């Protein structure tokens, strides 16, 4: 630059220090103005907190039945949301049931993301025979409808919480693997991978520094949509009697047992379903917002 005289220099505003945020800083900056996503994110946090704090929040013991007050409507005596067919407080059961349902929604997705993502990145990056071996195996699982597959695996493993988790994880691995594979295969052909290799980088370094960062956001976003699917699937399994055992409060199980009383107390029967609906809608909307926020180009 040429020298600028003092008076001219005064006219030129001092260069503003540009705001430099990291990747996650950028994501948060976009989320900050997305009020819908923020609202539902708050809702999810609230639901999770309620589930965690269930022993202190729930007004009654979820397993204490009372034959005198069975299938009462909401607002009956001190039962805010009414009672079920054994006279247990619905509100307490929904609060306690959130524990199992959320656990079933989140943990299988978490495990499946780690396992499926690993296989997907491996298949996408290695290509060739490795890809064929992994992806064709996944295709075998894909051939079954997810509910049928879950029922089949669950049936052979037996009911119970751990088995249900294993079942859901197995069911969720193929789609996540597929997403990770597609994203990786897309990244692999990009010139910056060649550029990294040309600068002498070894495969692990390229994978971590260049591939994973690009594969992570589509996989994370997709996984977050699966949370609601997983909750529904877990509820479905419980509904079919393949999930958690009856006394444990669980939204799907409650729906299943209350189903018989739908003509007696339709409102009460619908409540566990409402809980499932609200939670899964919240997860879906948050994942949608997350997808937008994580898109660097938007």
């Amino acid at each position: 630059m040429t020298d600028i005289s003092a008076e001219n220099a005064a006219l030129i505003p001092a260069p503003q220090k540009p705001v430099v945020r990291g990747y996650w800083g950028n994501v948060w900056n976009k989320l900050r103005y997305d009020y819908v996503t923020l609202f539902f994110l708050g809702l999810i946090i609230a639901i999770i907190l309620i589930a965690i704090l269930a022993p202190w929040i729930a007004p009654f013991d979820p397993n204490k039945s009372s034959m005198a007050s069975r299938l009462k409507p909401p607002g009956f005596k001190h039962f805010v949301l009414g009672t079920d067919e054994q006279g247990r407080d619905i509100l307490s059961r929904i609060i306690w049931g959130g524990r199992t349902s959320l656990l079933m929604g989140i943990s299988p997705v978490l495990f499946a993301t780690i396992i499926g993502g690993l296989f997907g990145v491996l298949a996408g990056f290695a290509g060739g025979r490795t890809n064929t071996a992994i992806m064709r195996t996944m295709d075998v699982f894909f051939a079954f409808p997810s509910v049928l597959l879950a029922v089949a695996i669950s049936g052979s493993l037996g009911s119970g919480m751990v088995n249900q988790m294993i079942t859901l994880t197995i069911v969720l691995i193929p789609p996540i693997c597929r997403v990770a594979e597609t994203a990786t295969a897309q990244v692999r052909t990009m010139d910056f991978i060649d550029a990294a290799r040309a600068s002498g980088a070894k495969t692990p370094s390229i994978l971590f520094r260049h591939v994973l960062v690009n594969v992570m956001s589509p996989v994370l976003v997709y996984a977050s949509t699966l949370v609601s699917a997983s909750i529904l699937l877990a509820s479905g399994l419980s509904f079919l009697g393949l999930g958690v055992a009856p006394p444990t409060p669980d939204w799907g199980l409650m729906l299943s047992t209350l189903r018989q009383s739908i003509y007696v107390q339709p409102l009460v029967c619908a409540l566990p379903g409402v809980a499932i609906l609200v939670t899964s809608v919240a997860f879906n909307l948050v994942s949608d917002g997350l997808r937008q926020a994580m898109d660097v180009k938007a």
Partner: protein
Amino acid sequence: MTAQPTERHLQPVPPGDNNDRGGKAQPLLIVQNLQKYFPIRGGVLNRKVAEVKAVDDVSFSVMKGETLGIVGESGCGKSTLARLLMHLMPRDKGTLVFDGDPVDEPHGITLRELRRNMQMVFQDSYSSLNPRLPVVDSIAYGPTVHGVATSEAKIKARGLLEKVGLRPDLFGGRYPHELSGGQKQRVNIARALALDPRMLILDEAVSALDKSVEAQVLNLLGYLKRHLNLTYIFISHDLHVVQYISDRVLVMYLGQVVEIGPVDRIYNAPKHPYTRALLQSALEIDPEHRIETPPLVGDPPNPINPPSGCRFRTRCPYAEAICERETPKLGKAAENPAEHVAACHITNPVAGHSMAGRTLQSLPVEASAPRALAAAL
């Protein structure tokens, strides 16, 4: 050829380039008989049914401090050649000698060493930068791979950004999508320079830019070359740009070198009929001088099954029987950089071509189509 070790130590190191090993006369890069065939698989058993002869027996050398332009039609193997030189794909045959040291051989330099000395700028400025890394990190990545501390590499990256004309505090933290095409290509150049290479392969590096930005980047390349003692291999289909930037030019056709020589001699007096046709196809700036008839007709033959003998004979107006029988040789062009040679029987007085020994300029430009084709029409 390779200097003896004793001689090498006696040679004074030229000022400015501490990495020079072979001395001034030693070509920076010698490529010998490079070959790459891509298999085409088919059938139920996925067996190899044919081969695309993408790069076939290519030899040339690049002198220190020069810019070697590589031109040719689309699909003639220019980019494959660049990727082979960069070892981004395995070669079938051929040797590379970098400044007197064979590459990837027991007594030569390692591949890693070569990559430190030779870097590449890609055509697609968008896909050649990681969209999830701020550009300063993209530039700093190379040095960190070679063991430089991250903080040090970032300082270096900022310095490089300055060198390519981007203010580091303004652009360093940006993501590739926040830059224009020209800015991205500048970042790509900075990234290629991050390892202090001695040679840059520029694979259509300015082709995707619009003309004014292209001029800026070309000037930047010239500036960097002078200040950093660089040697360029400049691959492009733009004949004007190649003429502007190159010292020597190599013309490729169907995976082979058809002509190589100093830029003025190639552009003023091409020896190979293909080179002449290629140069004629370049648009004149003066509309009065534009040609109406195409200098060449037809598509290049299929590289899966190239014509016997001279590969250009199917489109050459001077093709004779000898061209079908014998493959014209470039000769020992790889050894002498000042030489202007073409792989054409006409240039060889003893080859048996009826026009042998005559210069291309003395030959009539009468037929734009080969005689066989003209007869059929």
